[in-house]
């Protein structure tokens, strides 16, 4: 978060980060997707993902991270909220109460028979909101002097 001191050499840290970030992100996706069956879910998945980005921020400076991940996190949070809301509204089209979820087993190419639930879409909203919110907070505070 703090501006990294350019004089110190962070080579080990930065190299390790390059590997570890992907591991964390993959783990966070695992947490996210398996949330319906095992511990995890949108919230903790989102926190983990943003943890990965924070690691990037620590290893590099903010400008670099922004150029790697050019997201507007406020918009990301808004998008997540919109998705969560739309999954709720979607149930209205099927003449069931707001936020009624459904699930089913679908034959997908590559993956075979998979259980898909609309609740995951809602969780996706949560996931995006959590990333958006934490990154907005951290970036905003980090950018101020």
């Amino acid at each position: 978060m703090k501006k990294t001191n350019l004089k110190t050499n962070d080579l080990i840290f930065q190299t390790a980060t390059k590997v570890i970030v992907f591991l964390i992100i993959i783990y966070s996706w695992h947490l996210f997707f398996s949330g319906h069956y095992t511990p995890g879910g949108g919230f903790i998945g989102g926190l983990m993902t943003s943890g990965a980005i924070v690691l990037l921020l620590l290893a590099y400076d903010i400008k670099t991270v922004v150029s790697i991940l050019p997201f507007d996190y406020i918009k990301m949070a808004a998008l997540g909220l919109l998705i969560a809301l739309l999954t709720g509204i979607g149930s209205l089209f099927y003449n069931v109460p707001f936020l009624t979820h459904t699930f089913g087993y679908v034959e997908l190419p590559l993956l075979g028979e998979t259980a898909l639930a609309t609740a995951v879409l809602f969780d996706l909203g949560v996931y995006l909101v959590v990333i958006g919110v934490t990154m907005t907070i951290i970036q905003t505070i980090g950018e101020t002097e």
Partner: protein
Amino acid sequence: MTLLHLAIIAPFLFAILVPFLYKYFRKIHTGWFVLILPIVLFSYFVQFIDEMMDGNTIIQTAEWIPSLGINFTAYIDGLGLLFALLITGIGSLVVLYSIFYLAKEKEQLHHFYVYLLMFMGAMLGVVLSDNVIVLYTFWEFTSLSSFLLIGFWYTREKSRYGAQKSMMITIFGGLLMLGGFILLYLLTNTFSIREMISQVPAIMDDKLFVPALILILFGAFTKSAQFPFYIWLPDAMEAPTPVSAYLHSATMVKAGIYLVARFSPVFAGTAEWFWIVSAFGLFTMFWGSFNAVKQTDLKGILAFSTVSQLGMIMSMLGVGSAALVLDSVSDTYYSVAIVAAIFHLINHATFKGSLFMVVGIIDHETGTRDIRKLGGLMSFMPISFTISIIGAFSMAGLPPFNGFLSKEMFFTSMVRITELNILNLETLGLLFPIIAWIASIFTFIYSMIIVFKTFTGKFQPEKLKTKPHEAPIGMLISPIILASLVIIFFFFPSLLEYTIIEPAIASIIPGMLGGDEKFHVHIQPWHGFNTELWMTIGVVLIGLLAFLMLSKWSGIYRFTPKKLTLNKGYDAAIRGLDKSSSTFTRFYMTGFIRDYLAYIFIFMIVIVGTSLVVKNGFSFNLRNTAPVGIYEAVLAAVMVIGTITVLFAKSRLTSIIALGSVGYSLSLFFVLFRAPDLALTQLCVETVSVALFLLCFYYLPELKKREKKLPFKLTNLIISLGVGAIVTLIGLAANSQRVSETISSYFIENSYELAGGKNMVNVILVDFRGFDTLFEITVLCIAALGIYGMIRLQAKKEGEE
């Protein structure tokens, strides 16, 4: 909405037009337009006299809030009509007088007439309403318009003071009166006065009956300036004289009289009513006349004289209520007091109105109202002199003026009351005529002062601002009309007897007579040589003597200590209220958040603790508790150590770290109690929040950054121990008294069946209770936007500077 309703609210409607008339017809005095309305209304109301003489009443209902039983019911009976005629009749004369009194170049006439019309409409509404809520509404309208009229010259400090004082006192009474009305509603379940009267025998013994009586009398006494609430009336004399003549002598101050008369059928017949009304009335009469003598301002004398005369009318209404106590009064032996009250009400309106107008003329023509500066005006102002002689002699109770008749009847009723053997009158009854007689002597004295100190004696031109001369004829018309009425009513009282007075009495003491009978109203100037006549002769002789030797005994007024007057008491009360409330507010509104937190916590301890004790809610049993393992014990010990470290750490950094340790042990607890989702989340969130704490710590301002231990305060310790104890007790009690099964079994059974998920926590979060989650993420978004906004907008602001 009928014509009658329209007549009542006509002044309000007309008031809307007044500013336009003022603006577009600048050449014509606005009063001329306004004058039309009261005259039309007066003629409209005159036509009801016939109906009333036949003993009929008129009821017209317009729905207002029918679901609450509040309707604009206009009700005309003898009493209402009498007041309506007074209001419109004197209203016309006052408007005419004001046209010449207020200059159209200097004064804000549009304000004046709007207020005056508002008052007129409100007053008509008061006297012609059958519904008490509507009556109350109009009642407050009169207070409000009176406030505006007293403060008409709002640049003067005394006007504002007088206006505020009258507002405070009359609104105080009005609100109490509303309480009385509501009590009556609770008793009778109706807002209609007529229906209340019909239920009187049933409610008489209820314990709310006397409180209602007292509350309503508060309203009447404050409005009618009875002791000790009269103090606003002398200060209200800062109003323009037409206002004083209209509001503060003829109409508004009689609203209280009206109220007493109107509610006589409900309350009269109880000893409380009789004693309160007549005793306060009599004392007010004495006190007002006693104090009037020492005034030096003409309007001040008239104000106190109004107080005194109102007390006299009030006492007669009280004494007259004895008629309702006795069941067998078929003759009018005791109802003579009511006749006298009504008759004097009319007389007082005539002579007091004319006297005020004359005083206004004197003020207008000489520039002062101080009797010490006035004198010898007789030759300059012969017409005003004549009018004031008529008015003042009538007030003093001399023949051949109408005041003589009503004063004789007043004495008659006071003498007769001593013969009654009810309501403990055997012993105290004798006081009534004596106080009345003494008060009449003072009345005689100040009446003489008004006339002779002003118009006879030495002329002092050097003390006057202008050279006195007779007023223009337009200004004299109204007082002349009123003064002629004073004489006409003496010689031809039959003009009033069965046309106005009898119907009014019939509505004050209804149900006393059968079918077609009428009250016997016969007013005559000569009764033969009886006690009353001797009393009057005594009043004249002693009064004359006292007036001539005024300078010898007026020293007694200096004996009364200045600090003990009611005005001083009122001022001190207002100041005291002001001061004590601000002291109190300053005492508890300290501006320190720690104090407010202390209040909140103490309140919580007291309320929750008391309800635990009172409801006997505490219980403790170990039935449902799980065994405590070694891990739990160790973790709990770690948390306790962490918490204690937070409190006693010398450095803030230590506190933050200790707080983090508490958070991480909490997540371990989650692990231990098999809540993996919570444990994961708690770990991440704790990390983030500790990082944020460290950030805050790092950016603490240099100046105040002193590493200091938390200062110890005993109160804080007690409060925090109390809160902890209470919360623990509640937790234990709640856990020991679990009554129903939890619903978690439903989730366990159905999370896979219905939602297709095996992680129950997540299924609850996104499916069963997804709605909560939706708004929790909204909360997160708001928090992020808040932080973003706070930091970015502040930075921008600094950049601009």
